[in-house]
Structure formats: C-alpha cells, structure tokens
C-alpha cells in the first residue's frame, strides 16, 4: 500500500493543519468527560488494603471488625477470587510478559501491594474498613536492589508453580535476551581505540495528572461493563475475561477522556478490583487511586544499567559495539522482556555501519514497585548508555563528538540487520529506512543552539562553567506485524460521517488527528467527522495507545476505511447521476463530473440512498498492521551552566529537532515533542525516586517528587523537519515517545563539556556533581 507519488507534493486540505482538538472545548470547560465524573446509582466505593511489607506471606486476614463498620458491604481476599495467573501488561496476545500475577495472592512482593478489597456504601466507610482489616504477615527477606536480586543467597520472589513464562524464577530473572551480529569481542580487540563504561538510569514516575480509576456495573442483560482510564481497552477486556472466566461477549470496556497515561495505564491496575466487587455483589463499583497509590503501587519505569564497550579506528569510524544490561522489573514482570529489547533495538540501529554488534541483558525481579511501560519504553535508558559512550569515544580519539555521531549514523535508504533480529519479545522485520532526515535535524539543531559559534569554559564570574552537548535518537512507529488497528466509517444523510475507532486517545489528540485523516480522504471539513473511540461494543479492534503506534497504525486503518467509503460515495453518485465512475471526482462535500459538470452534494447522495433510490448504508471498515515500523529521528542539543561552588545545574537552552514524517496536526505533534522533552529533562535533573531501607517509596507526592515546571529550565525549542514517510498515512510516522530519549545523554554530554566530569548515573543531582568537582580538586 505504497501511496501515489503525487501525494508527496500535493497540498493537503485538512492534514498538516492545526485543526482544533475535537474534544478540546469540553475538556477546558470542565464538562463531565473523565471516568470519575460519572455516577451510577447504588455504587459501591472500593478501597484496597495494602501491604506495609516489601516481602511477606500472608498468614491470615481477619475482616470481622471491618465488616461491622456501618456501610461496609464486602471484604474480598485471595480466598474469594479465582486463582488465575496472568500479566497485567496490555500487550499483543499472547503477551511476551510472564504470567506471574494474581488479582490477590497469599504472598506480597512490594510495599503497597493489595492484599484485600474493601467495598462500602461510602468512601469514608471504605477508608475506615481498610484500617480495620487485620492482616497477619510472616516476613521474608526482601530484595531491594538489582545487585542483590541475582546473588545466590537471594530469596526467590516468584516461587509459585502456576507462573509461566519466567526465564529463571529461581534466580529472580524474569526475562533474558541476547543477540550478536559478527564477532564483537574479536573486532573490539582489533580496534585502534576501545573503551568500556557503565551507565545507570534510575526509575521515573509517570506522574500523569489523572490517577488510575475505573467503574464497573452490570448492564440490564447482566453483561459486565467497565469504564476505565486505560490505554488498552481491548486488552483489558481480554485479560478480564481470562481472570474471571467469563466470555469476552459478556464484557464491555469503555474508555472516556483520559488525563494522561505515558504508559502508566498500559496495564490493568484498577479494573480487576472493581470487576471482582461487581461480580461478587452484583452492584456498581468505583475505585480511584490516591496520588500515593499511583506513585508506589502501579507501574514505574524500568531502572537499567548498561555496561557498554565500543571500538573504533583512529579516524572515528565505529567498528563494534557491545551492550550488556540489567533491568529492574520490580515485583512483577510486565513489559520486562520487551523494554529490555527496545533499549537495544531502538538505539543500536542508529550506528548501522559497525562490523559487529552484541546486545544482551537480564531483567530481574526485586521487591520494589513493579516496572512497566513508560514513554520511550527502554529506548531512553539504552540511548543514555549508547550516545554517551560515543561521546566519550570521540573525546578519547580527540575528535568532535557530533562529527563522530554524524559520520557513523544511519541515513535514508539504509538498513540494519538489527531490525530483523530484534523485535518486541520476538524477531523483528527486515526494513529499509525509507525516510530519514537525521542530517537535516542535526543541521537545523546546530543553527538553533549556535553550535559553530559556541564558547565553553568558565564564565567571567569565574564561578560558573558553560558547556554544550548533543545526542541523536530514534524510535519506532508501532510494532511491526503485531500492532493492529481498525476503523469503521459510516455516512449520515447530512453528509457527516461517524468515525468509530478502537484507537485510544489518552490526551494525545489522536481523535483529532485521525478525524483529519478521514476528512482529507473524504474531502470534507473536520467538523463533518464525528469521532467515537475505544468502546469495545461499538468500535472495531485496536491494540491501544502505545508504542508510538496510533497515528501510523490506526491512521493507516482510518485511511483505508475512508478510501473504501470514498469509493462507495463515488459509486452512489455514479448511479444517481447516471455517469460512469471515471468521470467523477470529489470536491468539498460534493461529487462533480469532469465531463458534464453535473454536481451532487454528499447530503443528497446519502439522503437518496437512505430513503428513495437504490437504498443502502454507505460504510466500511478498514484495518492496518504495519509491515514495518518506520523510524522517527531526532537531534537534541543542550546548553548548560554549572555553578562550580554548589554543583547547581542550569539548563540554559535545549533544542530538539525531530523527523516525524508529515505532522498530521503540527501543533499537536509539537506538543508531543515538547512534552516528551520536558519529561526527559525532568528525569535528567529533578525526578528522583527514593525508598526507605525497608523498600517503601518515599517520594509519592509532588512535594517530594519534583516534576519540573516551566520555570525550572531555560529556553526550549522544538521543531519538526520537513519529511515524508511513504508507508505512513499522508507521510506520517510517530512523534509520541522520541522526545524523551535524548535529554539525558544531551545534558550528560553538556555537563562533561562544561566541567570535564562524566556523570554516568541519571538523574544528575547537583549534590553528586559537586562531590565529583570537589573530589577532582583533591
């Protein structure tokens, strides 16, 4: 389905324009749009009793006192629930994550893990009941770091026999991956210069504004309806069906508007608990997490450490790279294998001219909060290591880091054997890079940061040191041959169209972008497209909002559906006007004959087809699965000033220029890029998750966990390069994740440029930097 060449140069009517968000007015005017905005009669309020221990078995649970509290209706424990092992991860099926989770288990594996479900008439009664449930624990030794997890003396975190898909449960290894192309060690030995370094990226919280929330009720036919703040409604339906052993036909999942996810809602966190209550009591139920619960008891980012080796010839040509990693998946293995693989598969192809490359790693269980999907999905952790070691290599060779990155990186028309070897959880697909404007991104970024004129060193106050750094990044657009999206379009007699999509707008603006694609094909304005998304009863299937897939995968599905509808409109017009098809063309909401000049409006066509002439419904479904995963590229430049007396880091300016193909809605695309970049800056400089000695997360609120505000960093410039991806809808590929990949390495490189100190553990704390400055002076 390679589009026509003329599309490339064509002016678009609707696409590549800043259409208003289709849901924007309702969102900003406070209309009831979110899950928690709706009420059902006789709804029960659900709260969870949570473990104060990082690792323990539950000896007994006594709910008798709790049940005496007026208004308390039920307390459910593991005894009341099916013992079905599953993964909360919302991924393509069968999932590449281990089945290692129960709705409630008799063992707890992190502080905050649910041990009982309380349902009451009021929130107050539920809260009181949570405190009144008595749980007796038998404490087990807790594993609180990656280092400890694989020690022979470490306790096994997942001894349960029902679990499946764990790589080596006894050694706490949830997943493992390794691949090699060529003879890496041999070539590394043979290089003029070979260096080896270790980089460590700590975890991060999603910090989306809307907490996890879901509601459930039985419809008049006793079907289970779940309204949820989820990124994966269709996966949620499938997983709930498995857990509770009820047919998919008896479950409906509805996703209303969502207040952000960033991957944090790409797993089941609340749905199973409300479902359990509704199934047990036959009553509606609601569960909304507090901020503390969102932080410590949903998912966090995989902490990863990479030992990297790189070898090059004197002139800067990179000959071999080896990356060996450990990733911390916490108590459960959701997205364990795939985030590890992505940290290699969405970074290493950047340097596709190597003679040999090796990648391996273990993902280990610990008794810390479970890690899961998070914007970037492993790629930023991998890129921190890879980009920085290229930077360090350049320094070692006495070459300019950017020059080394430029001369070794991938370009349009090229490929990498990694595309085939590393997919997500399995083999990938061969592909050539059809669109790559990396060089243009670099050139524009250099201009914007003033790269050629830059001066580094101490500022006149002889206290602050200035420096510059750059990083280049890639991502993907959906998971090839796995992520599938579908769209249905039906026509109404006023010439409007219902666009029904499984795609899940979680605040990203995808409803708007997809409406633009439909409007472009159908030659109408966007207001003629009525979007309804993510309701498993009414919209066709879509894997969900993740892997930077929606614009590319679901967008292509919308385009396919719209093209079918377009043909049906032309067909209808041909019958009514009695003109052969080749004479006809679409103009704005009309069909026009090039031969006779006859014109008929969409409204007339559909009205006649509904009521009077050759009666039928115009409508079609299209679906799409990517044969490849087109790669967006990006170049990022950072300018920092470091106060050498206090270690304070001042990010003066950060520039990111990305190639996302055609931006379907440029202002929304830039919003994604700026948002991702800001989240990357936060991770690099401010966001620091801390635990107590017993494994309790201490940074569960925004007083202690510092997400940057706009006042915390200097100038931010994001731009998009002119580009066109031939396999994308109107030339589009993705922009949702890539922004977060590069701030850490770009800032690390700038800090080195300023101070001569290489920080290899992120976030980069002023305290750590000052320590290094002072140790160097000694």
């Amino acid at each position: 389905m390679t589009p026509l060449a003329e599309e490339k140069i064509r002016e678009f009517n609707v696409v590549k324009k800043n259409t208003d968000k289709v849901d924007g007015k309702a969102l900003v005017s406070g209309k009831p749009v979110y899950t928690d905005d709706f009420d059902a009669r006789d709804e029960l309020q659900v709260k969870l009793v949570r473990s104060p221990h990082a690792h323990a078995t539950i000896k007994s649970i006594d709910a008798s006192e709790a049940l005496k509290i007026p208004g308390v209706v039920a307390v459910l424990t593991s005894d009341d629930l099916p013992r079905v092992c599953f993964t909360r991860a919302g991924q393509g099926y069968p999932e590449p994550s281990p089945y290692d989770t129960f709705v409630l288990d008799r063992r707890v594996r992190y502080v905050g893990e649910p041990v009982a479900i309380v349902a009451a008439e009021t929130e107050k009664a539920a809260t009181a009941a949570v405190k009144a449930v008595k749980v007796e624990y038998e404490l087990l030794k807790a594993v609180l770091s990656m280092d400890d997890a694989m020690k022979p003396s470490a306790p096994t975190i997942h001894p349960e026999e029902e679990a499946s898909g764990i790589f080596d449960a006894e050694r706490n290894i949830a997943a493992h991956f390794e691949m090699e192309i060529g003879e890496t060690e041999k070539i590394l030995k043979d290089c003029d210069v070979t260096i080896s370094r270790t980089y460590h990226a700590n975890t991060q919280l999603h910090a989306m504004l809307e907490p996890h929330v879901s509601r459930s009720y039985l419809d008049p036919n006793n079907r289970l309806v779940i309204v949820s703040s989820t990124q994966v409604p269709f996966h949620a339906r499938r997983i709930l069906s498995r857990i509770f052993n009820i047919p998919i036909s008896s479950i409906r999942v509805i996703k209303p508007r969502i207040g952000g996810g960033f991957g944090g809602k790409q797993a089941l966190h609340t749905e199973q608990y409300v479902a359990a209550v509704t199934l047990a009591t036959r009553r509606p139920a609601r569960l909304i997490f507090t901020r503390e619960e969102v932080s410590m008891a949903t998912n966090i980012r995989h902490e990863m450490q990479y030992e990297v080796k790189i070898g090059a010839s004197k002139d800067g040509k990179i000959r071999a790279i080896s990356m060996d990693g450990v990733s911390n998946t916490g108590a459960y293995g959701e997205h364990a294998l795939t985030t590890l693989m992505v940290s290699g598969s969405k970074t290493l192809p950047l340097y596709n001219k190597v003679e040999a490359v090796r990648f391996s790693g273990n993902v280990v269980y610990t008794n810390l909060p479970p890690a899961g999907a998070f914007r970037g999905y492993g790629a930023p952790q991998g890129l921190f290591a890879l980009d920085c070691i290229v930077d360090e290599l350049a320094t070692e060779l006495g070459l300019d880091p950017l020059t080394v990155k430029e001369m070794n990186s991938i370009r349009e028309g090229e490929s990498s054997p990694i595309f085939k070897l590393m997919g997500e959880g399995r083999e990938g697909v061969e592909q050539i890079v059809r669109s790559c404007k990396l060089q243009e991104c670099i050139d524009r970024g250099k201009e914007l940061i003033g790269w050629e004129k830059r001066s580094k060193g101490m500022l006149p106050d002889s206290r602050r040191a200035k420096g510059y750094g750059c990083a280049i990044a890639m991502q993907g657009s959906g998971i090839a041959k796995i992520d599938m999206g579908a769209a249905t379009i039906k026509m109404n007699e006023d010439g409007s169209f219902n666009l029904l999509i499984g795609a899940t707008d979680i605040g990203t603006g995808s409803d708007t972008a997809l409406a633009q694609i439909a409007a472009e094909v159908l030659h109408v304005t966007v207001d003629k497209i009525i979007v309804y998304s993510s309701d498993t009863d009414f919209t066709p299937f879509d894997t969900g909002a993740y892997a930077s897939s929606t614009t590319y995968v679901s967008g292509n599905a919308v385009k396919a559906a719209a093209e079918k509808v377009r043909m049906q409109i032309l067909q209808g017009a041909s019958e009514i006007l009695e003109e052969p098809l080749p004479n006809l063309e679409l103009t704005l909401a009309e069909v026009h004959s090039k031969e006779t000049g006859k014109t008929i409006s969409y409204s007339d066509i559909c009205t006649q087809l509904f009521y009077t002439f050759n009666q039928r419904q115009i409508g079609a479904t299209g679906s799409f699965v990517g044969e490849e995963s087109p790669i967006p590229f990006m170049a990022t430049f950072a300018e920092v000033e470091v106060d050498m007396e206090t270690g304070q880091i001042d990010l003066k300016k950060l520039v990111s220029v990305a190639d996302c193909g055609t931006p379907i809605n440029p202002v929304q695309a830039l919003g994604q890029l700026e948002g991702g970049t800001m989240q990357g800056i936060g991770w690099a400089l401010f966001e620091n998750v801390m635990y107590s000695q017993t494994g309790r997360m201490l940074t569960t609120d925004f007083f202690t966990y510092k997400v940057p505000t706009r006042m915390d960093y200097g100038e931010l410039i994001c731009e998009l390069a002119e580009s066109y991806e031939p396999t994308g809808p109107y030339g589009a590929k993705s922009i949702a994740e890539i922004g977060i990949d590069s701030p850490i390495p770009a800032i690390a490189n700038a800090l080195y440029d300023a101070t001569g100190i290489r920080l290899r553990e992120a976030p980069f704390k002023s305290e750590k930097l000052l320590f290094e400055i002072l140790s160097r002076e000694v």
Partner: protein
Amino acid sequence: MTFKLMIPNTEGELQQELMDDEARILAGGTDLMVQMRSGKVAPTRVVSIKKLERLKEISDLGERIRIGAAVTYSELQRSHILQEKSPILLKAIRQIGSLQIRNRGTAVGNIANASPAGDAVLAMVLSEARVEIMGPKGERHESIESFIIGPGRTTLSTGEYIRAVVIEKTDDWQSLFIKVGQRNAMCISVASIGVLRKGKEVRLAFGSVAPVVVRAHKAERFFTREGIDGTKLGEFVERCVESISPIDDVRASSWYRRQVVRGELMKIFGHPDVGGTDVT
C-alpha cells in the same frame, strides 16, 4: 477528614474559638491544608481569619513596620512601604512558591508554621522581627528567634494567636537572599541564605540547615571585629558553617547542605567588592 469551619467576625469571637485544643487558625491555608490532607494534623475546628479586617493592615511605625496576620504575600509585594523599606523581605517573598501560593499565603502563617525552610521567617529573623501575640492573658511580644523553638514548634499556648509581626526597616542595609534548590519553581530549598550588610556590620541567617532558621551571631561579631581580609575570610566562613546543623532528607544530604552554604558564602564575601555583585 471532617472538621467545622468557623469564620469569626471579631477578634473576641476568634479568641473564643481558639480556647479549644483541637482548633487551628486558617490564614492562607497553604501549609494547613497540605498538613491536614497528609494526616499530619487533624483539627476538629478550623478557624478562618479572613473576616478580621484589622488583621489585614500594614502600618508604618516610624523605625518599624507592622504586618497584620492576614496580610498575604501578594499584598506585601504591592505595598509601597515594604518596597521602599524592606528589600530583604521582598526578595525572600519573590522566591516563595508560585503566584497562586503568594496570593493566599501569609508571612505570619510562615512564622506560625515554624519551618526551618520558611523564607519569610528568614527575612524576618534578619529584620529582628518581634511577634505580637494575643491570648487569654492579654497581649505579649517576643522576638522571632525565641518565638520559634523547633521545627513546627513555637511558644504559642492554647488560646493564643499571632496578631501581627513587627519588623525593622532595613533599607539602609545592603541585602541578599539566595535559595538553592534542586529546581527553581515552587521549591522548598536545600539551603537558603540571607545577608544584610552595612559597613562593618553584617547580619546572616540560614534556612533548611538546622531545626530552625538560624542567625549566625558569632560569625557576625567576628566580621565586625576582624573583617574578612586575606585569611580571615576562610575563618569567617567556617564560623558561619559552625552555626548550622543540617540533616539528611529526601532533598539533600547534610554534607551537601554544608557545601552549599560554604560555596555560597565564598561567592558572596569572596567577591572583589565585598558583598558581591548581587548585594544591593
């Protein structure tokens, strides 16, 4: 979280409401609401002072300025007398929270909250502030340094409330206020430093580096007596550092806090035109 909200119309009524041990004054609420939400405090009565017009006054007492308990930071920032006569307080306020916080928060709330990180407290310690306290036994006055006795602890007893704070005018001093934090906006600082300087006299106070905001009295006297030329500078800075006793917490280690104070002081006092470029 259940409580009764009382909104007295007179100070007499306020006095009545406060006779309950479980009562708490609500000024801007920017500390109180946060603490109630986290469960740190659970008053059964919350007493708003928003209707007490007399607590909203800022008055010029000649050498001193009196600030009523209900005056918000934003009101202080707009006050001409403060703009002219207390640059140090304005510099501190500029760094407090965000516009929203400054629109609600009060300087007296900052004192009553008695946090070692209180930015207005630091400016007031430098301004030799006196706290005007009203209670069942009548009015009493106390210097801010003796009024705050520990983190979150003051000498207020049941039924007592702060009516106003009276600060010295310090427009004839050079002033400097520095806040070091892991981030700029809405940050509770890792360390904060305030300096007033007039010729050979200096006043120094530090925030977030001891159980309370501390004045470096010993170092101040050293400065006046010995000056800071040559090797004296290092000695002076060490005396300053001796006055602090930082702890490790989620924001920073005690080691880092000491280093920050040392580094900042070297910057301020080590600059060729002593007092530093920022001191105006």
